[in-house]
């Protein structure tokens, strides 16, 4: 039980550290998985929409 509690502590600590690293150290582009909602059909500004 004691070991299990320690494991949970380290998981939480790791999660807290990972959150801070993700938020402030790693570039945001690494986590940008959202698909672009852009309705554009390219870079030539054809105005088709």
């Amino acid at each position, binding site marked *: 039980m004691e070991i299990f509690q320690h494991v949970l502590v380290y998981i939480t600590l790791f999660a807290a550290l990972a959150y801070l690293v993700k938020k402030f150290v790693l570039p945001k582009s690494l986590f940008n998985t959202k698909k672009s909602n*852009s309705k554009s059909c390219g870079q030539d500004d054809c105005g088709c929409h």
Partner: protein
Amino acid sequence: MSKQINVALIGNPNTGKTSVFNQLTGLNQKVGNYPGITVEKKEGVCKLPRGVKAHVLDLPGTYSLNTTSLDESVAVELLLNKNDKDHPDVALVITDVENLKRNLLLFTQIKDLLIPTILVINMADRMSRKGISIDIPLLEEKLQSKVALVSTRKRTGIDRLKELIAEYKNLSKKPNIDISVIAPDYFEKIKNTFPKEESYKLWLVITQDVNFMPVEKKLIQDASAFSTKSKSELKRLQQKETILRYQFINDILKQAYKVDINAAKGFRANLDKILTHKIFGYLIFLLILLTIFQAIYEWSVYPMDMIDTFFASATEWVKDTLPAGAFTDLIAEGILSGIGGIVIFIPQIAFLFLFISLLEESGYMSRVVFLMDRVMRPFGLSGKSIVPLISGTACAIPAVMATRTIENWKERLITILVTPFTTCSARLPVYLIIIALVIPEGTFLGLSYKALTLMLLYLIGFGAAIVSAVILNKILKIKSRSFFVVEMPSYKLPLLKNVVYTVLEKTKSFVFGAGKIILAISIILWFLGSNGFSDDFKNAEEIITQRVTENGFSANSETYIENKLLEYTQGINTTDSPSANNPSGTAIQDSLSLKTTELRGRALNQEIASYKLEHSYMGYMGKGIEPIVRPLGYDWKIGIAVLTSFAAREVFVGTLATIYSVGNDEEETIKYRMAAEVNPITKKPLFNLASGISLLLFYAFAMQCVSTLAVVKRETNSWKWPLGQLVFMSLFAYIVALIAYQLLK
């Protein structure tokens, strides 16, 4: 599948744009930042007739497309860039029925970008009171657009507006004005160089600080196909453009907009005379500030106490219910206290934004800017900076968030950077205990030295903020234009819905934005203070139990037990009720024996906690920084307290209580212990006048608050500013504390 269209809300400040946005989107809205900058991005979803859905974007308020701030550039770039995912299918230009002429300048500019545009005339409920009549069909015909007459206060006209948005495809895309008439040859050359682009778009890129794909400013400036014009020539052409637009607007309004002057004016002019008066204006503002201050400082104490009690009970419950162990301790002392440390700020944030929202909604904030601008501007601050600076004396977190009302980025940044210097309430426990320890008794002009010291600390904080603002104003090379033009909007009764939205949104933004960072750091700080690698830490219980068994308690613990026992005995003796109710001699002995056992158990736990903290990672860090803090007159114990109080300044007292093996609530005992502490090098009391003043000055200037850092990071959208602030304030605090100690020792 329903179709979603993009709708952009744009308009002059104070036209009720946010109210229209709230009416359209209801609670389906979220607030964030535009990528990479701190301009607020407010977006929501609105259901339109025939199953059409609209993604509504509330753009920053602007008087025209001639940009003067980052906020306005964001609005213009979005309107220019068809490739932007938020580029509007239809733009709603929100106008104020009383200022239609000025508001229409922006309307004609947006119309000339060939974006389907609807003119929304807000505050229609004031028309009869102000003697205004508008010929809507004529206005629609002349502007080649649709007009919606709306009153967000009376909730009228919104359904028709939704109908018009749903039918946006029927809107004319013709421009109001042919911009090329101001310089036909010049515009022909530009058009020949970029045949695919509209002339007005190109004109904006040439004259403003904006870019858009695929035409960027650099590209235009490099274009050799047409001769570029000098700045003064461009300015002259811009003036011609504005005159042309106002001629167009005047011609329309002459026919479509009538005002019965006899029905207007009166109340507003009289109120303005008082609220912007050279003496009464400042007195009224001072009274309002005092009320805000009272709310943040005093009224919020009640909900804050309730939150505190709730988290204390929750901590107890977790400790009693869950199986004992490291993770239970983490939940109780790390996570719950971390969440408690975030939630506890909610009442202060809510009160501050309740008042700010009321002041803005009522139209009074513009009068504040007018009043305070002349006072604050010499220091590089805005008239609106006074609200964050005063609020900072309660707490820097809501104060930093309140800087969002300052439009000019440089003034806003300076206010954010200097606000943490003002004396917040978290400094108070530290100040009070140190002042009580080191400042001698006595009076000066009827005021005690202790009270004078406390007042001086408040003044020092405010002075440091002002001096830093002057320096930052000189050294920060941020290009931002600032104007003395202040619009005085009409006085309005604040809309409850808007006030509630603002309070909710700001609270949410703190809890879910900065709150996550604070929680993560709290967990790490708990870990560092509750874990250690050495055998001393791991075997703390055995070591201390054995030590106590062999040598008895430390002098400190013995004094603690004696004092507590004395208090308890006096408590029994003062119960001088009839003899029948008095306990017998044996009962008293039993009761004393029980109390002694309880106190000895508590003292043992406190000694173990103190020993553990000394040998934890945090303890080693405290000892590690001892050479750095020794020149300030501190020992490793104060070093640990300084380190842990980085989570929040008030933690300083709690940490010292743990180190000195006394309960957190035993303020008198902590004071006693601190007074008895001896500096091992000088052999003098550790907390003397020199080290006490040094410590007071350190806390007056140091950025000892992770929550403020997190909020500054969030408000500036960069680590550059909060880290710079941390380094500068810490170094400055260190140097001042060092000088003070070395001079006074």
